[in-house]
């Protein structure tokens, strides 16, 4: 039995094509995935991301718990600031990636120390793991709470904040003042300037029963409903990892382009640290880079890449509506440089592709060099 978000009936009524995504019946598109993609790059679109799970932490031990649990250091956060991090196994494999928001005193949610937002498919595993780690903290003041009472709507695009303010005037000042990667609270709405598209925008967590009316008001104001299909092409252009495709429990964040999210500077004992330090000392780590197909065809995950330094693999591939070419994310041997030409094995046979830095697109602008 697939799970439904509070907006499921609206998606069905809008004629969305639905798919099973991590056990949730979610819209893949509402007609044209490419048009939805362009709406976000050029104007503004919205995504129902209520399948992602918010987990709230309360209690004075929350900080120590997260500094042990997460590969990134929550001590980098002031109240209201967000941090992207991996949740690692002791051997360094990635259990999930998540965003941690620091709340507490000085924010509108003084009783919540941190809010974590995790992926839908991995939420149960994450929670079980967190409970297991929590046991190490004995009787410490620490409570984990899964927020099944919230809906989550991502509004993304150059006009996203303006359009959200128009629909919800009570948020106008908050939205105008909110810094990138910051969150603020207005009544029982939690507003964060975060997203998964490479565009400006916000993600709003609100009580489930208020979500349908807000969604409909946004649609009436011209915000395009967008499905998981556009979400995937947008995040791929933005060079953002997808859990389960670009990294998983068998892979180190150091080989998934996520070294920047691992904090090895602070003298913390976090889970996976020793394994990552061993990998780093051993050297020869594979790199995570972009590929742009030079001819016709479409790059897909698991396709083989031949480089002068040895074989690599595409972890995510698609057709980029912004570049009008196929692009991919790939794990490539050490020594491969942006600008190198490599050979990808497409369905139809070998084809040349160019290695490039990530992201491909940011804030509506193409950053990848022309083919």
């Amino acid at each position, binding site marked *: 039995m697939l799970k439904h978000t509070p907006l499921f009936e609206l998606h069905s009524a809008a004629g969305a*094509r639905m798919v099973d995504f991590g056990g949730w019946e979610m819209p893949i598109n509402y007609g044209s*995935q490419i048009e939805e993609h362009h709406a976000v790059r050029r104007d503004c679109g919205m995504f129902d991301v209520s399948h992602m799970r918010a987990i709230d932490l309360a209690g004075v031990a929350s900080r120590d718990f997260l500094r042990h649990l997460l590969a990134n250091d929550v001590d980098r956060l002031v109240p209201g600031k967000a941090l992207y991090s991996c949740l690692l196994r002791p051997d360094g494999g990635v259990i999930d990636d998540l965003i941690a928001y620091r709340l507490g005193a000085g924010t509108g949610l003084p009783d919540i120390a941190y809010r974590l937002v995790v992926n839908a498919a991995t939420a149960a595993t994450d929670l079980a793991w967190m409970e297991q780690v929590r046991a190490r903290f004995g009787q410490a003041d620490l409570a984990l709470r899964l927020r099944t009472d919230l809906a989550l709507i991502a509004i993304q695009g150059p006009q996203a904040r303006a359009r959200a303010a128009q629909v919800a005037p009570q948020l106008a000042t908050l939205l105008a003042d909110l810094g990138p990667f910051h969150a603020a609270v207005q009544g029982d709405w939690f507003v964060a300037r975060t997203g998964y598209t490479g565009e400006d925008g916000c993600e709003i967590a609100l009580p489930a029963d208020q979500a349908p009316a807000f969604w409909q008001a946004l649609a009436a104001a011209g915000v395009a409903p967008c499905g998981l*299909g556009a979400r995937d092409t947008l995040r791929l252009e933005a060079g953002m990892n997808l859990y389960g495709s670009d990294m998983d429990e068998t892979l180190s964040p150091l080989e998934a382009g996520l070294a920047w999210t691992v904090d090895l500077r602070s003298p913390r004992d976090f889970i996976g640290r020793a394994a990552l330090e061993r990998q780093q000392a051993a050297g020869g780590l594979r790199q995570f880079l972009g590929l742009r197909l030079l001819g016709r*065809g479409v790059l897909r995950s698991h396709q083989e890449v031949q480089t002068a330094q040895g074989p690599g693999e595409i972890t995510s591939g*698609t*057709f980029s509506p912004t570049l009008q070419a196929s692009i991919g994310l790939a794990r490539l041997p050490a020594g491969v440089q942006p600008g190198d030409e490599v050979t990808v094995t497409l*369905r*139809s046979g070998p084809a040349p592709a160019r290695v490039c830095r990530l992201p491909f697109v940011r804030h509506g602008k193409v950053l990848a060099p022309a083919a």
Partner: protein
Amino acid sequence: MTVPADLHYTESHEWVRTEADGTVLVGITDFAQEALGDLVYIELPEAGKTYAARQVIAVVESVKAASDIYAPVAGTVVAVNESLKDAPEALNQDAFGSWLFRLQPANAADTGGLLDAAGYQKQIDSEK
């Protein structure tokens, strides 16, 4: 969803139009294009090549996935719709108006083994 009555169909969602000269035009159905999503790349066969029935003859790729197109009957490729290579979205806009390739069937009676509109309608109803 439309299923034109004057065409034949395969279980793998190709449509087949028999022309006056005995050749057949082949495309993908409206049901197929909708299931695939926005099409972004099409690989067509070469004219002159011969295929067995149900052999992979072309590939259409959408933003989501790649999908094989099968020869509905045994035959030789007479022509391909080159304009689709630069405008694969035409398949989304008008699936029944956008043919992929023209075949000279090895045996003219072969199209008799394909589904008619009613049979195909029944199949897609069962897949919904």
